[in-house]
């Protein structure tokens, strides 16, 4: 299988202030040295808590924001070196689905108009051809073709998210970033949208970066998984490997705390304490140091980088290797 997307030491720092007198304040490491590969036709799950940098990674890959350092490779070509014509082609090939469908659609345009913008940009198809393809797409995502004449407020969240999925597919992209596509939906609708994404992925064979905070959804959807914490990738492996042998103390903590149905009420007070940005990260040493239950003094001073532990499983923890 060929690699479709690869990030190499992808890094994004945010300076707290552009004002020179404050500019020596520490910058925030939103994404720090993140490298991973997504094979063509695979679903890659990126999981972590709010503020861990998973959304920033998605946006960096699409070049919606520019990285501080590092590269993104698409189909063997360096996206950072793309000139405008290549970039335009890349934008057609790489689409995104956001969490909130209502803020993803222009409220003053009909669905047909919103979904035609892509065709206009690339001068694709006549009006009848566009209409035919969009009507077919609407049916593929489980909606009536005549919904194209409606406005976003006439839909429920679940229906509109189906339309957002249709829009992402309308230009037949090879790669889609789905950033928390079901987080704002009700439980019964979440399952419908996850099933829909799966059906379409199998039919159109696009490659997917699936970003979520919910390990249950990640386990259900992904082929491979990366776990992020405070801007760093702390563990990555195939789905089966990661969920059967989680090695990083953070992954383990996340799994322990993940919502499970219990037949007898039980609240565990013995789980991970503290919060992500309670303390500024260490200059050197492990990003998870302050909340880790397995830390030793060495963790404070030794930078932790991803190490291979066999079975294509990499973990950034010296205690786990």
């Amino acid at each position, binding site marked *: 299988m060929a690699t479709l997307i690869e990030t190499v030491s992808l890094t994004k720092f945010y300076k707290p202030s552009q004002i020179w007198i404050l500019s020596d304040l520490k910058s925030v490491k939103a994404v720090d040295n993140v490298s991973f590969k997504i094979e063509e036709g695979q679903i890659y799950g990126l999981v972590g808590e709010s503020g861990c940098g998973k959304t920033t990674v998605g946006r960096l890959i699409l070049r919606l924001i520019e990285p501080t350092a590092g590269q993104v490779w698409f189909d063997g070509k360096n996206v950072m070196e793309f000139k405008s014509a290549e970039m335009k082609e890349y934008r057609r090939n790489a689409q995104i689905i956001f969490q909130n469908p209502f803020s993803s659609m222009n409220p003053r345009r009909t669905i047909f108009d919103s979904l035609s913008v892509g065709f206009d940009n690339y001068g694709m198809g006549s009006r009848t051809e566009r209409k035919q393809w969009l009507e077919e797409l609407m049916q593929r995502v489980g909606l009536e073709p005549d919904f194209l004449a409606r406005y976003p407020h006439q839909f429920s969240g679940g229906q509109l998210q189906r339309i957002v999925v249709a829009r992402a597919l309308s230009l037949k992209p090879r790669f889609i970033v789905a950033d928390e596509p079901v987080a704002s939906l009700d*439980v*019964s609708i979440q399952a419908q949208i996850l099933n829909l994404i799966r059906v379409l992925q199998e039919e159109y064979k696009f490659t997917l970066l699936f970003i979520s905070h919910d390990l249950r959804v990640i386990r259900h959807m992904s082929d491979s998984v990366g776990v992020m914490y405070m801007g760093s990738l702390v563990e990555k492996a195939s789905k089966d490997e990661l969920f059967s042998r989680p090695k990083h103390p953070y992954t383990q903590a996340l799994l322990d705390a993940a919502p499970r*149905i*219990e037949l*007898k009420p039980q609240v565990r007070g013995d789980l991970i304490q503290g919060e992500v940005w309670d303390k500024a990260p260490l200059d050197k040493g492990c990003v998870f140091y302050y909340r880790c239950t397995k830390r030793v003094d060495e963790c404070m001073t030794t930078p932790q980088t991803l190490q291979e532990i066999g079975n294509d499983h990499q973990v950034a923890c010296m205690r786990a290797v």
Partner: protein
Amino acid sequence: MNDIPLLEVKNLKVYFYLRDGVVKAVEGASFKIQRGEIVGLAGESGCGKSVTTQAILRLVPAPGKVEEGEILLNGKNIFEFSTEEMRNIRGGKIAIIFQNALAALNPVISVGEQIADVYRDHKGVGKKKSLLQAVDMMRRVGIKMPEERAKQYAHEFSGGMQQRAVIAASLMCTPDLIIADEPTTALDVTIQMQILALLKHAQETYGTAILYISHDLATVSRICERVIIMYAGEIVESARTSELYGDPLHPYTQGLLSSIPTLEGGTERYLKAIEGQPPKPTEYPTGCRFAPRCSFVEERCRIERPRLLNIGERMVRCIRYEDRSNGNFD
């Protein structure tokens, strides 16, 4: 302990009169909460769970109206209380915690002062004494260095700490009942568990009953002893936690549970989703409100509204269980 439940909601109906029609947000909800009990009220957006809590505090916003029904607090109907009495109940006997803790806190008053305000207002003590009490409560809910933190403002607290501060405020007058409306929804999973542990601790320490509102069946199962499921303004099922999750009866409950991906067991390629979507509140079907999405639907379901049946200790609103029923509730 006496026989009167702490809170009893009887045949509560809350309607909203809108231009497009009448929204029957809550249609005949009845349930009880015993002293010190943690009861879950679960359902999807628009099912009426939040409106029910607003009714309990007599805070249903216009154009909503409590059409019918009684809410008995310690056996007394709260709709007969004066405005003044009701003010004493809110924050005194019944406290509420919301999903968005930052919005619940005043941005221009220090956190400690706000927590103290609750106490001062209800107990009529001085500023200094109430502030000491507030700092003490902040320590109890796990806020480190409470003396310093009390002087800070809401934006200086992290999400988890904000929710702890709100819980501290809710506990100031040791209420009989805390209504927790999606208290962990906005928080990360590792923080969610910390907040659940704190609520459980409050119940054990102060004997406070908790009405835990959530759309998340997993957190509900972790903290609640009994669970009520609402759908489209109606209670469709109510049972002890082990019964509800071990043997769900209502097709809606069954559908909800099987549509959640799990961390254990095999991964099928597709989830068993409930088809369709909840009905619009202005267009509820005449028969069973779940009928259009139900895979067991019969002709009768579309015509007559199913009653809430008693089955042993539990209740379910579905005609499939009529032969097992030992009476009906409404």
